[in-house]
């Protein structure tokens, strides 16, 4: 019993300490990110790495998710004679929930894991220490551009995912299931609010971007500088980001939509 209590205490202490380190790390990185204004090249390079290189998986996933949503939505709506509302159903599902959440999960798997592995390997091969000894702060030079790129890329990727999802559902709805194209778009236009739905979805994806980027760069920077340490950090990034995104989504949904 005492051993269990001690383990629980040690685990809690370790988790709290890690969280404290992560918060201080974030504050330092945010403070150092102002320098990016003078060096946009660094940010553009990382935007390409975490944004452009993630486009393929986002485009393909967005299309398929939209197509499946179109099929499932149609089968449910047709029972109530409301199949012309397919556009509204798909658009609301994607802008409010699926767009930000699925994009963040895909982002964690594709870009987050890559960020952690890259920074972790730089640590394991003493490249970060070398940089420090050259009087170059790795938190500003390596971490800040990656974090800001994640923050900017995720909302853009979520928008692309949502748009392609809607296109996928439109294609399935109009060409396979016989939904009227005019009704699809006009109902969507009438029912989807920019402020309540699109903007809230955008805010969600921005917050997910902060969470995904922060978790990825911190795990890389804080990992044990060994091959096993980098591997564990990469796995931790994907798992923790997924859980945080899902938990955060619940909280944000409860606050945003009533």
């Amino acid at each position: 019993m005492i051993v269990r209590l001690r383990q629980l205490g040690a685990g809690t202490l370790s988790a709290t300490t890690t969280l404290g380190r992560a918060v201080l790390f974030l504050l330092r990185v945010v403070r150092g990110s102002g320098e990016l204004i003078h060096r946009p090249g660094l940010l553009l390079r990382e935007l390409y790495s975490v944004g452009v290189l993630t486009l393929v998986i986002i485009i393909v996933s967005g299309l398929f998710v939209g197509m499946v949503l179109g099929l499932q939505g149609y089968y449910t709506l047709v029972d109530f004679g409301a199949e012309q509302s397919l556009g509204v159903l798909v658009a609301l599902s994607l802008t409010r929930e699926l767009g930000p959440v699925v994009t963040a999960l895909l982002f964690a798997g594709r870009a987050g894991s890559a960020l952690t592995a890259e920074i972790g390997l730089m640590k394991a091969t003493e490249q970060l220490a070398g940089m420090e000894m050259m009087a170059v702060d790795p938190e500003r030079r390596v971490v800040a551009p990656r974090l800001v790129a994640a923050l900017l890329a995720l909302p853009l990727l979520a928008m692309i995912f949502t748009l392609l999802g809607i296109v996928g559902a439109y294609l399935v709805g109009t060409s396979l299931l016989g939904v009227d194209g005019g009704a699809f778009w006009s109902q969507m236009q009438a029912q989807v609010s920019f402020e309540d739905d699109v903007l809230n979805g955008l805010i969600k994806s921005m917050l997910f971007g902060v969470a995904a980027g922060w978790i990825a760069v911190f795990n890389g920077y804080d990992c044990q500088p060994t091959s096993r340490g980098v591997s564990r950090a990469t796995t931790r990034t994907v798992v923790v980001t997924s859980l945080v995104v899902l938990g955060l989504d619940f909280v944000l949904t409860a606050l945003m939509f009533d």
Partner: protein
Amino acid sequence: MPEPQPIPAAPPLVEISDLRFRRGGRWLFDGIDLSVHRGEVVAVMGPSGTGKTTLLRLIGGQLRAHSGSVQVIGEAVGSLGRRSLYALRRRMGVLFQSGALFTDLDCFDNVAFPLREHTALPEPLIRHIVLMKLEAVGLRGARGLYPAELSGGMARRVSLARALALDPELILYDEPFAGQDPISMGALMKLIRQLNDALGLTSIVVSHDVEETLEIADRVYVISQGQVMGVGTPDELRRRGSEWVQQFLGGLADGPVPFHYPAPSLSEDFGGGAS
């Protein structure tokens, strides 16, 4: 006629006094004193795990001592803020054991990195400086190669060129000879000594390669068990070093550091028959 005043001796470039540093429940350094004067090549030697690399990290400000002082180029490293520490680091170069080259950059860009970060020099001038530094280490022709395409010795030479990029006053070498073939080792030895003398540098070489290090060092500190076990020129240590130092320098299997791990007596283990 007034007596001519004696010229005061220049203070050491690196001065460590009564340094105590604890790691993993034991004192890695327990009151170490060390000084390095301008222009010297000073070797810090000792068995593996004795804290030689840690000493370099303390000098470079990556670690802070628990007590005592580490003065580098007139600055107390332990009490410097980030900005002052980085200003100090611009005046020193470090050659890491692994080379620590940026794997995504070729040799040219690796050497250019500190110049691009710290200066606003135009690109043609950076090109000239980088090629000069690479020429100094004999690798001007390898400028387009990536670290994965270099041998261990070449990687360290590129790393040395990078360490020299900002014309530092002090260079710290962490195990420069470890795992090198004889030709690479000879090239590195020659470079460390010649660059130190030609560029007016001061060098601290951490190593446990005895012969190579003694050949290029002006003075040697031998450390073990948190203490300085011996200090002097290579000749002094060879001739008058303590028994422990003689064992270390001579690579003798038995001596103050016993060959046998402490164990019950032979008669106890073999005489009685019981285990």
